[in-house]
């Protein structure tokens, strides 16, 4: 992407005022999306994201600049700007770059650009048709078909020089059911760090039908109850509870400032004793996987919580500098337009030993959250919320009528201790996680879990 001697010059320039560390991140990304709605292919757009970000550290001060101009002059100007933003008396010797080859643990079998647009649109049409065939209640189907091929080069003043390719494939489907006055939505967004083999692995008709089923079920559902109730949160996207209630508060971005409810709690019991949680970038071709993070470190599997005991935070380079913990390969960013920060990869609660039926059977009056929507958290207070996309009442140990419109709220530190049963059916699901370093692909996951008591914001 860039000549080695230019990379070296840029890093040298960035260090010229005595910075402790300098890093160059260069990106060339191909994006493509097809937007289909109202039974028609509406908009096709392809594009090229292209630029570089330069970061230097002076002590615990990080200075970051980016530009779309990869000419030697523009890069040297940017390096000059970051170097002049601060000054110290350090004098780091000239850098020797050592090009490091990385092992690709996420092979791409069928590059997306080898498949015709017509085939992709045929695939989309099958989803659309299956959804509409499911019920006359389906009034609209929106589908977005996304491909991304990100090529990155990372070099730093420790001599690192490494390149990587990340291929992402995803399809979002949302079906709307309407009875004239009311509308309800069912959505799915499967994706993988993979090429077209991912789309080949999906049954488009089943995908369309599933989104329609949820929309129609919710259209005919009554509103959820209000108050404090026990809840079973199903596997897959249910893992968003851990992501929001706990994951963000284990990122050094909030831990380092002491602003996290879990700061200073390593080795302490912070969750139900049967709960083990993992953040793993090594899972082959998973949506949140990587070969290296966006600071050039080889990815790894990080045990966050083991049997309820807090074992590790998620640590990026600056987080490591501030907290003293070793980096965990969690330095991630949306693009060169963001400085990296500690972020999640594939984050999930590991399997437990309880049987799903026993969990449902243990509740006289509660809620079964079959599918979750998104959520958010305020890491400083630990307050989180997330929405139930497909919910049911549990009455006398049995799943009963569907209910809609419920949001669950709670406090992370508190909710983890109120988990009382964990099933053995772990599954993951895909999401885009937004935070300080932009919007990045992450997997959430869990087996079904039981939480003894949580506030449910329904309307009855």
């Amino acid at each position, binding site marked *: 992407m860039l000549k080695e001697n230019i990379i070296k010059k840029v890093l040298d320039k960035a260090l010229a005022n005595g910075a402790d560390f300098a890093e160059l991140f260069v990106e*060339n990304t191909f994006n493509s999306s097809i*937007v289909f709605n*109202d039974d*028609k*292919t*509406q*908009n*096709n*757009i*392809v*594009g*090229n994201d292209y630029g570089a970000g330069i970061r230097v550290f002076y002590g*615990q*001060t*990080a*200075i*970051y*600049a*980016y*530009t*779309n*101009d*990869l000419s030697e002059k523009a890069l040297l100007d940017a390096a000059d*700007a*970051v170097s002049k*933003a*601060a000054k110290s008396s350090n004098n780091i010797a000239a850098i020797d770059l050592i090009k490091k080859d990385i092992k690709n643990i996420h092979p791409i079998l069928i590059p997306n650009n080898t498949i015709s647009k017509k085939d992709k649109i045929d695939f989309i049409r099958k989803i659309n048709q299956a959804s509409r065939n499911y019920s006359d209640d389906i009034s609209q189907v929106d589908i977005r078909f996304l491909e991304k091929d990100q090529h990155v080069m990372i070099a730093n003043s420790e001599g690192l020089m490494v390149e990587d390719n990340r291929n992402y494939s995803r399809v979002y489907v949302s079906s*709307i059911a*309407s009875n004239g006055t*009311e*509308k*309800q*939505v069912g959505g799915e967004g499967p994706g993988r760090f993979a090429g077209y083999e991912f789309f080949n692995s999906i049954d488009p008709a089943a995908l369309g039908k599933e989104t329609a089923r949820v929309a129609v079920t919710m259209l005919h559902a009554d509103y*959820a109850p*209000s*108050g404090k109730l026990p809840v079973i949160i199903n596997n897959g996207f249910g893992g968003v509870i851990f992501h929001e209630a706990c994951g963000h508060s284990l990122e050094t971005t909030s831990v380092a*400032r*002491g*602003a996290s409810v879990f700061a200073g709690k390593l080795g302490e019991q912070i969750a139900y004793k049967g709960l083990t949680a993992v953040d793993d970038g090594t899972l082959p071709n998973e949506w949140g996987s990587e070969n290296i993070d966006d600071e050039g470190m080889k990815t790894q599997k990080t045990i966050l919580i083991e049997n309820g005991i807090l074992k590790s935070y998620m640590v990026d380079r600056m987080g490591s500098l501030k907290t003293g913990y070793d980096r965990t390969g969690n330095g991630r960013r949306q693009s060169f*337009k963001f400085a990296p920060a500690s972020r999640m990869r594939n984050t999930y609660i590991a399997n437990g030993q309880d049987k799903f039926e026993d969990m449902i059977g243990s509740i006289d009056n509660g809620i079964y959250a079959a599918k979750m*929507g*998104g*959520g*958010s958290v305020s890491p*400083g*207070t*630990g307050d*989180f*919320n*997330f*929405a139930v996309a497909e919910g049911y009442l549990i009455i006398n140990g049995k799943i009963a009528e569907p209910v*809609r*419109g*419920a*949001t669950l*709220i709670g406090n992370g530190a508190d909710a983890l201790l109120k988990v009382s049963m964990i099933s053995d059916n772990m599954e993951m699901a895909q999401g885009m996680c937004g935070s300080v370093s932009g919007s990045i692909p992450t997997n959430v996951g869990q087996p079904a879990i039981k939480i003894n008591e949580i*506030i*449910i*914001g*329904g309307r009855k």
Partner: protein
Amino acid sequence: MYNKEFQKIFEYAKGKADETEILLSVGTSFSVKINEQNVESFNYADSKGIGVRVIVKGKVGYAYTENFDEDTLNIIVDNAIENAKYSESDDVVFLDKYPENEQKPNVFSEELAKVDVKEKIRLAKALEKYAKAADKRIFNVPYAVYGDGKNFSRLANSKGLDRSDTQNYAYAYVGTLAQENNDKRMGMEFLITRDFNKFDAKKLAESSAKKSTDLLNGQPAVSGKHPVVFNNEMMATMLSTFSSVFNAKLVQEGKSLLKGKMGERVANDCVTIVDDDLRADGFSSSAFDSEGYPTEKTILVENGILKSYLHNTITARKDKVQSTGNGARGYKGTLGISTSNFLIEPGKHNVEELISKHDKIIEIVSLQGMHSGANPISGDFSLGAQGFLWENGIRKHSIKPFTVSGNFLQMMIDVEAIADNFKFDMSSNGASAVLVKELNISG
């Protein structure tokens, strides 16, 4: 700016595409964040991008690039034309003539562009310092940030349209965490302006600190239906979350609750909602939209009656009306519709009057989960919230995090009164405090 690139793209596209439009965006931005009176981070950005939109036989295709090499500029034209072939969108045309806008909001300050970086750092440091000093219960200041930026955009098409615009802005925000009796609460305050002298670090910091300490030691909410006041910031948040109900494209696709309701009552008498591109105090002001069409003040709801949707030229043609100048796209995106300065007009009551109108009122000052707990298609919402219990006009106590749920359209019908304390949020949505007859509270 970038005349050479524009010429090359038009020349290359000539004969291949029936019509071509080029959107250029060039910007710089800066931000500084403080931690413990040290600069935690400096960010400088220098960005540019070109997006092309072509029409081939009435079908539209898009492509963009951030790399301005001549080869790449040609490739994006080819890509856009290829994309148009697979589009099934309705017949798209550019207008023969794009009217001028007689009003041109002033969106650039020469003075702001001259502020020294040392002043900016001093301001951000002062935010943190005053926040910590404001109250001994403030134990952490996770945000003490100043930022500014400048954007130049140019839009030209093969019908001869060529318009450009330069805007700048500056903002500061501070976030505070307060702690007492093991309870932690967060507060935030911000200002966005083009006049650097308007930043009052002490005022912003003390306001944020007060917001967080006021919420400490909450009592549980009593679940049930209650009269609710959304404060001005949270009303703006509600309004922006459901702004897509006015989007004419979604109306035409049957995805808006306001479909078929033109001329009908959709809110209480006291509610007037407008989208005003031309407001001098707005930060989404512009004389023309992303299609080059002149913008205007559009009255969407007047005294509770639905008067207009938000249009671009494509949806306007379908509805046989004029565009409202709300065509929106960035160089990386496709043409859609968005709000500009979007607001509910202030009412006559002061806040004290508003909050005294019922024996018991729950005031909401913080909302969480807008992207997951609110559904703009159904209008249903169930959101995490924080706030206070008021009894007979007296604030009794703060309330532990609770949920508020209802339906946006019903809520607008149930608006009982609007206060006079109008405020824009960071994203150009504006509102005053609003009293709603009843909503479901769960705690």
